Each structure stands twice: as C-alpha cells, then as structure tokens.
C-alpha cells in the first residue's frame, strides 16, 4: 500500500471540486474527467465490479436463464421452454416439501419468534449481571452449527437412555421418539433452531430496547399503568419496527432452511422433514438436474419476493414512519 501513496501524491491536481458548492459547469473533456479523479474511481471499481459480476449478478441472471434450459455440463445447454417448471411442479414430492417448509416456518414463528423478545426484555430489566445473562444466552449462537447439531442428534437419542429421554423420565414423561417419528421430527428441529438462534436475535432486541425513551415509561407510570400494561403499551409498540423487520428476516430465513434437516434427518423419516432447499440440493447435486434445481430456486425466490412485498405493504400501517 505504502508504495502507491507517493504515486498518488505526484498528482495533486487530481482533487475533484468540492461537493455541494456551485461550481460553474465547464465543458467535460477526457482531460477534466481524468483530473477529476475519474480514472482512479474506475480503477477502484474494477475489483468490485468483477467480484459482483462473477459471484452475484452473473449467477442471478444465469439462474433465470438456466431454469429454461437443459444442462448436463458436457453438451451445450439447450432451450427447453417451461418444461423444467412443469417437471418440478409435477414432482409428487413437491407438495410435501412445500408443506413441511411452511410447517417449519409456522412453528418457528409461533414458538421460536417470541423467545428472543422475552429474553431481551428480561435482560434489559436486570440491574446487575446483565453481561452474564447476555453471554450465556449468546453461547449457543457461537457454537458452529455442525458441531451443535451433532451434539443434539445424540441428545435426541430415542432410546430410554437418550439424554432428553432421561431428563423427561425425571419428571415422569416418556420416552419420546424425537427425530425418528414423523410427527415429532420437525418440532425437534424447530426446538434446536430456537435454541441456536435465540441468543443472537436477543442481542438485536436489547440494542433496540436501549433506545426506548425512559420518559415514555415515566409518563405511563404517572398515568397509573401497571408493569404489564407498560410492557404492552410502551415496550412492544416502541419495538414494533424492529419486530416487523426481524419477523420478515426470519420468514425469509426459515423458508430457506437446509443445514438442520440435512444433518439431523436427511429429509426423513418418510420425507417428514423434506424441505424445498433439500429438494433443490437433491435435484442439483444428487441427480445432476441443474435445470430443475434452478427452476425450483427461481420459484422459491419469486415467492419470497412476493411474500416480502405483501408483508411490507400489509404492515405499512404499523411500521414507524
């Protein structure tokens, strides 16, 4: 870096005119463009544009194109119209994958979403040791997911000597089949996902809670509002902007769930945890059908864009202007 600085110094006239000040418009020639730092900004932009073109813009456009093509990496790709979409939509497993994904999103929303909010309010009310609570809550988020999933997979052992079943037996409940049963597999994954994600989301809510003005609480208190009432009528409305954004982000995230079902169950038992992303993975990297995989990806992405648009439109009324 230091070697380039003298080079930059030798051209002191490369300073662009100060922004905002009304400069009389001169004729733009290549020379003024060069002296205005035009070349340098282009040089700076080259790595940015290359990286984004190759690894962001390109793949997005290619995804749209591939969904209308047949590719097997050897022969030239050929246009096949909508047949990839037809193939994916007629897949008998699709409905279940969509249903499972929606079920996961719903369970995570109903049971997982309030946990970090409650945790944040609780930690925010602590007068001391809040750092300890904070760190403890964040610990699960710092464990690499793969290691945590392997641990939990062992905890979910369905035999009577399994970790969770041993704990349940202390309170007289019974061994549960956990990941081995079609009914319990998805809730088990949601339980893990809530444990893994609550701490990091709570940190965001805590940061938001700090910005709630204490005068609002004082005013509510003078008006005779109880602690619960203050929570409902001051804290929750003050957080609603953050809550709305976090809810949308969580929805988008849960619809793209992959690692947890892939490592916990691989989609089983009997496809009970088969999700859309697992299907995309199988299409592309198990069967080598990149057309079908991108077609399903494009449909999921379109659905998520639509969902976000509808969500933002529907919640406009509640979001702080």
């Amino acid at each position: 870096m230091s070697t380039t600085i003298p080079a930059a110094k030798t051209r002191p006239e490369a300073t662009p005119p100060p922004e905002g000040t009304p400069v009389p418009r001169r004729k733009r020639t290549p020379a003024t463009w060069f002296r205005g730092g035009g070349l340098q900004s282009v040089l700076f932009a080259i790595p940015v544009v290359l990286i984004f073109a190759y690894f962001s813009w390109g793949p997005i456009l290619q995804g749209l194109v591939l969904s209308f093509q047949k590719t097997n990496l050897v022969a030239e790709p050929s246009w096949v119209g909508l047949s990839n979409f037809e193939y994916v939509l007629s897949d008998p497993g699709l409905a279940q994958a969509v249903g499972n994904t929606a079920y996961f999103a719903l369970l995570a929303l109903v049971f997982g979403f309030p946990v970090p909010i409650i945790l944040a309010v609780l930690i925010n009310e602590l007068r001391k040791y809040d750092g300890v609570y904070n760190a403890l809550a964040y610990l699960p988020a710092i464990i690499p997911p793969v290691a945590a999933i392997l641990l939990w997979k062992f905890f979910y052992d369905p035999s009577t000597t399994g970790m969770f079943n041993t704990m349940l037996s202390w309170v007289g409940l019974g061994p549960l089949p956990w990941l081995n049963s079609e009914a319990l597999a998805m809730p088990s994954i949601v339980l893990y996902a809530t444990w893994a994600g609550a701490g990091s989301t709570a940190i965001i809510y805590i940061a938001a809670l700090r910005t709630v003005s204490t005068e609002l609480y004082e005013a509510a208190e003078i008006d005779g509002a109880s602690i619960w009432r203050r929570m409902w009528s001051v804290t929750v409305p003050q957080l609603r902007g953050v809550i709305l954004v976090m809810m949308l982000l969580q929805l988008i995230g849960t619809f793209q769930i992959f690692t947890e079902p892939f490592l916990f169950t691989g989609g089983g038992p009997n496809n009970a945890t088969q999700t859309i992303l697992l299907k995309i993975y199988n299409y592309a990297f198990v069967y080598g059908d990149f057309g079908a995989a991108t077609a399903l990806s494009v449909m999921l992405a379109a659905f998520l864009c639509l969902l976000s648009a509808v969500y933002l439109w529907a919640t406009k009324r509640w979001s702080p202007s």
Partner: protein
Amino acid sequence: MSYFQDNAPAGDTATLVIAEDTQARRARRRLGRRGPVEAKERGVISFADRKRRTVRVWLRIIQSVALVGLVFAGLGPLIWSAKASITGTQDIISDPMGIFFAPNEWGNLILAWNGAQIGQSLRNTVFVAVGATISTLVISVLAAYILAVMRPRWAPILSGAILATLFLPGVISLVPLYLTVLDLPGLNISLLNTFWAVWLPAGASAFNVVILQRFFTSIPKEILEAARIDGAGPLRVLWTIVLPLSRPILGVVALLAAIAAWKDFLWPMLVLPDPLLQPVSVVLPALAKGPTPLAVQMAAVFLTLLIPVVLFLIFQKQFLRGVGTAGGIKG
C-alpha cells in the same frame, strides 16, 4: 421500497445506540462510587416499583428461573461436550447423564486431532475464515468508498446494482454460483478444490457495502476536503483518513464475515470435495457417518467448538457490542 425508508432511520438508531452506550458507561463510572444499583437507566420497572415487596419477590423468582434456564441451555451442552470428549464410547452410550463419574480417557482427543484429522481441518477453517474476511473487507471497503466518498457520475448505477442483490433471496444463485465456480465464464478456470472458491464469493456482500457506505457518508466532508487540498489522492485519503476513522465498523464487518465463514457448511461442502482442504464444519458430519467411535466423534465436536467459545469468552464485551451494533443497522 419502503424497506429503505424503514432502514434509513435505523442507521441513526445504531449510532445513537453507540452514543448512548458510551454515555451510560460514563454515567455508570460517575455513579459507581455511590452504588452500582442506580447506575443504569430505568426500563419498564421503575425504582419505585423495585422497592415494592411483591415486585421484588417476583423479579427475583423470574430472574433466578431465567438464570437457571440459561445456564442449563447455554453452558450445559458445552460442559457435557467437554466431559464426553474424554469419556469412553460405552460410558457415553449407556448413561449420557452419568458420564461425569466415568473414568477419563484423554486418548480420545489425540485420536480426534490426528486420526480424524480435526487438527488439519481446523487449520483449513482458519484459512477459510481469514481469507473470506479479507475478501469481504477489501471489496466492501472499495465499493463503499466509491459510493460514499469518490462519487463518480456512474455511482448510482453501481449502487443500484449492488442494492438490488440485497433483496433477492440467496437461494436463487446457489446452483449457478456452483456452476460459475466449476468454470469461470470467459476464463476457463475451475476454482473447485481451491480456497478461492470460498474466499471470492464472500466478497460479494451487499449488506456489508451498505453498512460501510452509511458509515463513510457520516464522516465530515471538511476532513476529506482538507486532505484533498493538502494534495492527498483518493488512495491516501482512504488509507490515512477514512479507514482509521471507521475502525469500529470495520471490526464489526470483519467479525460478522469471520463468523459466517466459520459456520458455513453447504458452500464449502460443495466446492471443496477434497478432504484435505475441507474445513471442520464439512469434515465433522462425514466423520459422524463413518465408522469412527462415538467417543472420538464427541472429542472432535468438542475440539471444533472450543476455539470459537474461548475466543467469545475472552472478547465477549466487544463481541456483543459489535453484534448489537450490526443488528441495530439491520433492524
């Protein structure tokens, strides 16, 4: 579009959070002599409430239950994993809760480190995380600098193109990104089985560009102007003024990039099929599927989570503040 409008004040909130944080800390320091109890500003529950008996009792109960729950959920698995890593397979399977009374088998850790190649794959993970962090920092700093400080005529086009990717879910580019890495268009290079396949895509992060751009824009124009009048070129302004001023936000971006790279599983699994290059997150599940004894697996799991947990426990203050700041921007 209203997403932008929602987001715009959130950036100010984030800086407010930081400002308020330092204020609160100063206040705490001042009040520290009088007593730590009054140091913090009130929340939902006021000081008057806290003097009431029922409130105090309930608060004590709720906080104790929460603490027990958090210790159980946060620390429990870690402690169990630590003991399981030095316990025999038979003991772990027959009585997972009783392993604390089982004899120690230190050999597990050595078997995992050498035999199961956890040492090698941890080195790979460090490699992946460091490279991805550098790539993210370089690209997003350059992009944010162009958009916020240099502002050429075509900046709005670049800004729009980068922002557009923020709204598209990642799933759309997973498969094509893989095909891109297999054969870079126009170059005929395959990045498969090279760390570049993990490092370079990490650079294309619109979210980090937005965070940095917002911070760079808030740097007072007068400082940049003064440097330019003194004859500093764009690179020098970036290196000697913009970067030193934005050290905290650079730390946050680097931290988030490193954590994301450390945790990532699917992408490295796809582009690094060679076991000698795979990071630990890819090696572990393969290990669990193979014939490795459970005790060695558990030792491998413990070695994997040890480094991030220790780093977190050492730097937790900076860590939580950084993550909170980023969240404030995101929110």
